């Protein structure tokens, strides 16, 4: 390659006349200046390193195996077993409790449905407490997957409801409406997720792979029922309160920065037990069962009661129903 030297000199002249006010060092020959710039860049990089130093806590909390872990659906049984073992060891280390992480698959042919009798629910909130304990929720905030709305009689408009009531229940002019994940047939949260970290299982339960979720919270914006919860900080649970019976896609302790939601207690219900919130409810307002089984209680309700779903107009097709006696 040849370069025309005449051009160089003409350019040098132009450069000399164009500089404005300069530091004394700025008019140094270009090698000097390059050295100064290099020094500046090195200084900048060092300052950058210092500024982002809190990031060094990541390798402490996120092991290489966790970082490289694939999507749940891409894991072989063998890999799953190793992941579960790793998570059990981590829970032991971080929370001081021996837990078992299982992964019961959907029962073929079953589609779960839930119904709440609004004539019976009296807003006592036992379901929320049970959820909090069963699902290893962060104790710092009184979290559960359920919100109970105290609604004013004479209106189904949630605008006239409140979740923050703290008087004795039930109040004469009120009725109570628990809302949790509606396990939509057509879930907008699943459509929204950019990385398929959340999906609908064959039994209709919408689950999250807490180890794949990137924490963008798009699903939380998409859900019309405020059913999703984000782990704004690492959950704190005293060792003696940790529920050791854990499911990978359900109630294992969730990592900070990821999304979670109600999973119909799939670690219980897929093994033939009932959801914790149902067991805890003292009023018998809750009803859980297999929608595909024509003889189930829930199907009897669907056929014999006036049943409605929330925000039907949105086309989400909930598997969660409400009715009055």
């Amino acid at each position, binding site marked *: *390659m040849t*370069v*025309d030297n005449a*051009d160089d000199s003409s*350019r040098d002249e132009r*450069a000399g006349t*164009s500089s*404005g*006010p*300069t530091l004394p060092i*700025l008019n140094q020959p*270009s090698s000097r*200046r390059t050295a100064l710039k290099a020094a500046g860049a090195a200084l900048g990089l060092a*300052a*950058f390193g210092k*500024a*982002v130093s*809190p990031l060094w*806590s*990541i390798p402490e909390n*996120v092991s290489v195996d966790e*970082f490289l872990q694939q999507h749940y659906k*891409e894991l072989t049984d063998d890999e799953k077993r190793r992941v579960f073992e790793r998570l059990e060891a981590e829970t032991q280390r971080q929370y001081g409790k021996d837990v078992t992480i299982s992964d019961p698959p959907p029962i073929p042919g079953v589609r779960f449905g839930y119904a709440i009798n609004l004539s019976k629910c009296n807003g006592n909130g036992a379901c929320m407490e049970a959820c909090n304990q069963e699902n290893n929720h962060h104790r710092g905030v009184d979290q559960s997957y359920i919100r109970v*709305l105290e609604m004013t009689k004479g209106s189904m*408009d949630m*605008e006239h*409801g409140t979740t923050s009531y703290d008087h004795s229940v039930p109040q004469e002019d009120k009725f109570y409406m628990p*809302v949790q994940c509606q396990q939509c047939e057509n879930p907008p949260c699943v*459509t*929204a*997720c*950019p*990385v*398929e970290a959340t999906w609908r299982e064959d039994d209709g339960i919408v689950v999250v792979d807490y180890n*794949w*979720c*990137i*924490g*963008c*919270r*798009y699903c*939380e*914006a*998409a859900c*019309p*029922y*405020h059913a999703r*919860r*984000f782990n*704004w*900080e690492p959950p704190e649970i005293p060792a003696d309160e940790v529920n050791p019976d854990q499911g990978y896609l359900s109630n294992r302790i969730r*990592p*900070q*920065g*990821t*999304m979670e939601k109600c999973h119909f207690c799939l670690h219980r219900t897929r093994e033939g037990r009932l959801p914790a919130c149902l067991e805890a409810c003292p009023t018998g307002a809750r009803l859980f069962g297999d929608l595909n089984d024509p003889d189930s209680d829930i199907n009897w309700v669907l056929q014999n009661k006036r049943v409605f779903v929330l*925000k039907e107009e*949105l*086309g*989400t097709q909930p598997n969660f129903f409400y009715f009055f006696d």
Partner: protein
Amino acid sequence: MPSMTAQKQTSLASPDAIRSYPRFLWWGLGEATNGGLGFYVWMFVLTAISLVGANAWAHQVAEGMIVTNMTDHVSWGLYIANFTFCVGLAAGGVMMVIPAYLYDDEEMHKVVIIGEAVAIAAIVMSTLSVVVDLGRPDRFWHLIPLIGRVNWPVSMLTWDVIVLNGYLLINLHIVGYLLYMRYLGRKPNPKWYVPFVFLSIIWAISIHTVTAFLYCGLGGRPFWNTALLAPRFLASAFVSGPAFIILVMRILRLTTGYAAPPGPARTLIQIIRVAMTINLVMLASEIFTLFYTGGAHGASAQYLYFGSHGHYGLVPWIWTATAFNLVGTALFFMPAALERGSIRIAACLLCIAGIWIEKGMGLIIPGFIPSTLHEIVEYSPSLVEWKVTAGIWAFGFLLLTVLLKLIATVFTGDYEAGPIRGPSSGQ
């Protein structure tokens, strides 16, 4: 320059030209970081603010998103608000490209590269705004096609990631190619950039449309769930983008002597006049529908403009934006706006600030208030969020400064060393 052009055209064979591109970039970086005292002070301040932002973000990653003021009720905040604006800024750059290439506006052609540089910086800022919003940035790779597992084509966020990166690449190619050819003193070969320019026009519109679809596709959020959102986004982008570019051209003229002819700025002002009017008309029609119909659809608008149930957090924001937009628009319509002067500058600043609020704090936040179960939980950004956002802007300006410096250097031929001095040139 023209005499040089002819000489060098012959002296550089094309295989060399490709191989020496990295060296051109290295040279460009050197040139772009040469400057006077004011330049170094500017770069130093921007670096300092960027570092403050980087530090705040690192803390956020270590301690959790709890250091922001976002909640399960208002789950997106300042970051996504700023993201929305920056995408608009990037798309707005196309308003120089269209007159230059579709209408063969000669003068615009000379400065269109500035719009492309602004687009590059704005896209980088948008991407950073999304990254800092992630709860698990360490899992960012899950979003990368082929390596991760992307929910394409249904997730609008996946689309957004793809179109934003595509737009960035297109603009990097165009700017890089044009500068390099200019630097070599060769005439750019239209085959190598004109198709990309036309692609960039469509692409610019698509990035902002997809960003609007991100919100308006959510049936559970009545405030966003309106077909007018995408057109409104585009109209406001065609104000904020050109207004920003006018300011940039002004600063360039004052600092580097790289003076654009007066024509392009005038064209941009005409575009702003039309776009802003359309934007305001659509906004008015939106507001009419929301308030006249009332009900659940109007709940967010009620909260935004007048407060509701004793909560007034966004009221000062939106009225500030409304005032800025109206006054800014009025100024743009004054004949004086067509001349260089303070009226034009004031109009640009007011509209940029007004649109930043209108699209961010005035659109993203009220989408969450009241929540889907009609709870009202307010939001105002935390100090960490402000620091991170300031850091992103500072970094964007840093990048833009380097790009513009390079452009000005190459275009004014104001460089002290010859192109590509290396062992192979035998010197």
